[in-house]
């Protein structure tokens, strides 16, 4: 326990060392998460577009005007 406390104290520089490491990880985690979210969004939009296209194609073959 004492060793852990000693480690966390960082020789009195804990207030500088730990925020630096925290920032390092926060920024990199944000950098990892952002493209994942964007990927989900891109794929969702793509699927929505594909769904719209297939609906339109199904409606086309009976060349009668759409019923009101």
């Amino acid at each position: 326990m004492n060793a852990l406390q000693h480690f966390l104290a960082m020789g009195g520089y804990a207030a500088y060392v730990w925020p630096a490491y925290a920032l390092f990880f926060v920024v990199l985690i944000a950098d990892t998460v952002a493209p994942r979210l964007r990927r989900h969004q891109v794929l969702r939009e793509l699927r929505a577009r594909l769904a719209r296209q297939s609906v339109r194609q199904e409606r086309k073959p009976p060349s009668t005007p759409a019923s009101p």
Partner: protein
Amino acid sequence: MSNWIPLWLHRLSSPPTFYRFAGTLQPWAMTLALLLGAVALYGGLVLAPADYQQGDAYRIIFIHVPSAWMGMFIYAVMGVAGFIALVWRIKLAEVVAMQSAPIGAAFTFITLVTGSLWGKPMWGTWWTWDARLTSELVLLFLFLGVIGLYHAFEDRRQGARAAAFLAIVGVINVPIVHFSVNWWNTLHQGSTVNVFGKSTMSWDMLWPLLTMTLATKCYYAASLFRRVRTDLLDLEGGKDWVRQIAESEADR
């Protein structure tokens, strides 16, 4: 027969091939980054002895210096990819250049803030107009300028080419900026700071630093692969291979 390298590169630069290639490599790069990072953190935070001058505060070096190297390295990658994109008009090079920029900006930002956190206990100030610090700040602005220019265009590929051009202008300018700031620093003999008072680092401190550098390199590869894959999906939205991916991932 030594023309298999250009052939292989040519094939790799086609978006679907690169998408699969990056998808295979990306988990390995990330795993390697995490492993090396964990080893480096253990070595740096626990095993390495405290510095006789700076106490434990010097341990910030293990993330500060690799981040600084990565900032410059990524700028160089962006410049080279931008050059390839402009000369040979390869779509993949445009994407690599533009997706590198946010990662580079992130590392440069980390460098500036950790440097500031290190400077406060060591030099007694958060910021000093030292040549290295100022150049790093200019580097961050250059990254942000590239990102801003890229997003200012309606047409993404045109934006990528314009921003790639800006990146190349920056490559020429950064050494001039560094030189001029150095000159300015000698003129204003203010707070000249020498971070590495002793020129040789002990091996106990050096190996975690080098391991962390490798870890950030692997991280960059992983992050770049992830970003490029996403961007390719967006850019090639109408193509068949993207449609297949969208359909096969519909269930998840």
